[in-house]
């Protein structure tokens, strides 16, 4: 059994999930750009090529459409591939195999063939990289029937959700964020699963429900700590899976608090924060209007001054909670 205090970084937690699942199941393989590079995908692919060889660790030309399609096709014929897109922005070239093919396949064939593929997209933003090296598309993929979308915020969840995604018989879009790669926390050494579709209460509270995902879940915890100093008791929910979303957990909390702030790493309109707001509104538990903390409906800028304005942090969440409480 693993030591209770073994710490691992977020990126190495993903790396450990890949090592363990590839050792356990010969049908698992990793394909995508940069998987043999020491830096392209952070250190998430460390040691994989040496251990499993180039038959199962396949670095590829820049051909996102065909490579993602190949991953999907191999899943249809019995493999459990993980296809990585080191920058999610490039994943848009693969919309056909992801949406038209993978997401629809099980339904289109009346449940006769499933597509156990993990489509791993890395959000790689900041650093004045501008609009095409910054985007998070979880709202877009979560819109599509047949796709599951997960976004871990902690090393524990990163490993557990990668393992669940690989074991799942459906296409799972696994989205991580380079801003989380250095975060260190307790990660069990053995194989374990974090269930897809289950969120978690990161901090219990009674005044306001703060629902978040990915990087913004961590910012939400920081915000809650700040607010505690002022006597405001916030309940922080990290949804972990965007789709299926943990509706029960969310509604249970809002039933108690009657107030909701949503914090997202994506754009405000038509995305995660819109969906969370809508389903909470439908419940009838809200006593006050929702406030959303999200990216403005604007492409990512380059210049540092604009970037600072563009990406919300815990301070914006603190302000949103205070606004809802009229403090």
């Amino acid at each position, binding site marked *: 059994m693993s030591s209770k205090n073994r710490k691992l970084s977020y990126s190495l937690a993903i790396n450990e999930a890949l090592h363990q699942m590839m050792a356990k199941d010969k049908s698992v393989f990793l394909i995508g750009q940069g998987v043999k590079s020491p830096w392209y995908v952070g250190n998430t692919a460390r040691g994989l090529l040496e251990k499993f060889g180039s038959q199962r660790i396949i670095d590829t030309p820049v051909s996102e459409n065909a490579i993602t*399609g*190949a991953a999907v096709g191999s899943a249809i*014929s019995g493999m459990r591939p993980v296809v990585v897109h080191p920058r999610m922005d490039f994943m848009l070239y693969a919309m056909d195999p992801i949406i038209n093919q993978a997401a629809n396949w099980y339904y*289109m064939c009346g449940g006769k063939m499933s597509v156990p593929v993990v489509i791993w997209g890395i959000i790689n933003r900041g650093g004045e990289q501008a609009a095409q090296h910054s985007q998070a598309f979880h709202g877009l993929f979560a819109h599509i029937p047949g796709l599951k979308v997960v976004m871990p915020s902690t090393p524990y969840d990163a490993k557990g959700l990668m393992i669940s995604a690989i074991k799942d018989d459906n296409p799972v879009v696994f989205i991580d964020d380079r801003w989380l790669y250095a975060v260190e926390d307790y990660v069990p050494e053995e194989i374990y699963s974090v269930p897809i579709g289950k969120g978690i209460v990161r901090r219990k509270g009674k005044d306001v429900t703060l629902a978040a995902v990915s990087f913004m879940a961590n910012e939400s915890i920081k915000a809650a700590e700040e607010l505690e100093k002022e006597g405001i008791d916030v309940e922080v929910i990290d949804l972990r899976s965007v789709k299926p979303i943990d509706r029960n957990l969310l509604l249970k909390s809002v039933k108690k608090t009657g107030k909701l702030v949503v914090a997202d790493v994506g754009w405000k309109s038509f995305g995660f924060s819109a969906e969370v707001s809508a389903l909470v509104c439908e419940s009838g538990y809200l006593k006050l209007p929702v406030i959303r903390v999200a990216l403005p409906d604007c492409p990512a800028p380059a210049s540092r001054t604009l970037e600072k304005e563009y990406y919300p942090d815990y301070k914006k969440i603190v302000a949103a909670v205070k606004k809802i409480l009229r403090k």
Partner: protein
Amino acid sequence: MKKYSKDFLESLYRTMLRIRFVEESFVEPIIKGEIKTACHLYSGEEAIATGICAVLTKNDCIFGNHRSHGHYLARGGSMKTMIAEIYGKSTGCSRGRGGSMHLCAPENNMLGAAPIVAGTISLALGSALASKIKNEKKVSVSFFGDGATGEGVLYESLNFAALKKLPIIFACENNFYSTHMPIKECRPNNDIYKIAQPFGIKSFRVDGNDVLKVYEVAKKSVEMCRDSNGPVFIEFLTYRLRGHVGADDNIQGTRTDIRPKSEISKWQKKDPIKKFEKYLIKNKILDTIRLTSLHKSVRKEVEKAHEFAKASPYPKESELTNYVFKE
């Protein structure tokens, strides 16, 4: 002349006849509106699916496209369940969720079909990759039309297949029309088989209306793939005797074919089934009595399949959302 067994030649003829009779059996129900799913009939192209599938062994995989009734039948898919699918019945091969354009017979490694032009090429690339990773020596065949040569993913797939020496046959059925567009309005030249050559892929062009020529080139190609000398690209010259979709033409049921009459009648004279009949009679393989009895038995089989389909229930409304995710 090459020696083929009588049984073998008769089975080729029977397969082509089954495809033709099934396709023609849809014309009336389409015009009457009993069949609504968009049917892209394969009449005139039967020799290609028949000749290729005659070479394949049980574990080899095929992927089809929008015009895949013939691929499905030639690969051994059940006629009854295919026709039921086209009537939208719960007994259909895709349980009424796929319709004409999403036939599948995974039990025969017909792994599916999809109408996004070139959308399944990369899926076949993936099943070929799976075969290589597992060292299974199974060959994948991707069926696509001349229209697919306008899609970028084809070239990505050719490059990757050549790079990794994958056991895949790119089977391009060139019927000279991409929906309503004649090939000369889509491509600067007509030499499709040459597109794979810059990738170092062995390429052939053959008469797609001559089942024995198709069989021979497929045999050679499958052997190459099995001996790790794949991929192979084959262009089959053929013609659809009916329109792009529906009974006769682009708009289902209107019977206003836009192609020149002289062109159609020229190709009617090259009908692959009539051509093969002449060969069989000339070489005293089958006599007219045997031909007549074959026609009769296939016609009976098709009638029975329609009866089965018509008598089958539609899917239950309460089961609309089954098969979105595999549980």
